[in-house]
């Protein structure tokens, strides 16, 4: 079980670095899909044996939404908004990757600080969840293309999901599925908003959004 979690951890970290270093939006969406499927498996691994159908439902819902649903939605949106298919970062890719290394160090340190309070949570997953949250926030503020902000939001959501799965033992299923529904509605609304912004202004670059002010 430990080796399985460690592998998920390593692949998850790599997918984050790939997101930080990729310049094509399509590739980023595929990495996001990979990440969604990967971290969707976490409830199955962590709750091994304990709660069968509940963990299965949670994992299935997550994989279906974050691994398949959202990426398809984003790919469609990218095809519709016929704008630049590059990520257009404010911060260069090399600097983004260096930030990733810094964030990884920070999350390891934070995890070792948090560990005494959350002793039942596996260390590697706690580490990944903090790292995902940091990378998600960084992607939101450092990329010019509005689609990348949705991607950053979903990475952030992945982090919060993993954190919830491993730390909170007795969350009712309804709450966990409700969070999933929230994310779904969030992405849906963002998708519609991006579509309309693109149709109105012919661009989804966020630094041009100041033109929205009257």
């Amino acid at each position: 079980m430990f080796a399985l979690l460690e592998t998920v951890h390593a692949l998850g970290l790599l997918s984050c670095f790939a997101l930080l270093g990729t310049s094509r939006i399509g590739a980023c969406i595929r990495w996001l899909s990979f990440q969604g499927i990967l971290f969707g498996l976490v409830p199955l691994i962590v709750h091994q044996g304990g709660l069968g159908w509940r963990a299965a439902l949670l994992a299935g819902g997550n994989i279906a939404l974050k691994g398949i649903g959202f990426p398809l939605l984003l790919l469609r949106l990218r095809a519709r908004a016929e704008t630049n298919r590059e990520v257009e970062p404010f911060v260069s890719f090399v600097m983004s990757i260096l930030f990733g290394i810094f964030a990884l160090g920070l999350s390891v340190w934070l995890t070792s600080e948090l560990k005494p309070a959350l002793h039942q949570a596996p260390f590697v997953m706690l580490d990944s969840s903090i790292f995902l949250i940091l990378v998600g926030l960084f992607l939101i503020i450092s990329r010019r293309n509005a689609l990348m902000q949705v991607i950053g939001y979903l990475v952030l959501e992945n982090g919060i999901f993993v954190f919830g799965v491993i730390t909170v033992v007795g969350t009712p299923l309804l709450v966990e599925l409700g969070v999933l529904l929230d994310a779904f509605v969030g992405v849906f609304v963002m998708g519609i908003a991006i579509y309309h912004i693109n149709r109105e202004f012919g661009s989804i670059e966020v630094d041009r959004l100041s033109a929205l002010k009257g």
Partner: protein
Amino acid sequence: MPDFASVISPVCALVLAPLLLALINRTKAFVAGRRGPPLLQPYFDIAKYLQRGAVYGDATSWVFRLGPVVNLAVLFAALLIVPWGAIRSPLSFSGDLIVVAGLLALGRFAIVLAALDTGSSFEGMGASREVHFAALAEPALLLALAVLARVTGALSLTPIYQGITASAWVAALPTLALAAMTLLVLALVENSRIPVDDPTTHLELTMIHEVMVLDHSGPDLGYIHYAAALKLWILGGLLVGLVMPLRSGALWLDGSAMLLGMAILAVVIGMIESAMARYRLVHVPQFIVGAATLSVVGFILILV
């Protein structure tokens, strides 16, 4: 006292290193549907260069003549330290992995100085690119070796490579896989193979390593080509020794496994060269930093 077993790895390297280049070229030719040059072609080339006289420009000084000799000499020295998978090296002492990285850097320094000594702007450009990428590749090499040192708990290359057994792979699978990926990228970067540099091109705008040696001729060029083969052998040996965790103790078995591994590596490099296009120069630093990141992630994985 160096005995028979420890002499094998340098001797194999000295004899077989150019064969690696030939195998890469044969693979590329095969993928392209051609027949390719004979397997002994690199030997013929080097022999041809050694028979010729050298031409030195008026603008060059002793620095230019020293470059290829120093480069070849440091690679000989590195060969004495680097083990070949399970086969130990003649020399082994604590911290020798840093010496190997330093020797490789010294060889590059000599070549770069020789390139700058010609006063040619093309060679200066190549030298600048080479040093730029080396500044990123050297930390990556040290990080990858640091990961291996951490996994095996040894500080010398021979014990490190003795320690990389199948059970070490089982215990630290993600970490070792990440270090191996870094070493593969480094083998491509340091030997100016395709995603980074094209060893066959002579177009000044795109090349890195080849542009630095444009002014060398005769035996000097032969030394440079031979040194390039040795460098590929050394870095390839580090990679193959890592991914081929056979430590039987029987010399012929370990040796033939390594030989097979090196041949597979040459074919893999040939396939990569056939399948990929060269990166734009601005994307190369990203590629190397990404490779270094893999090792950092591996290191952090082993720490937690």
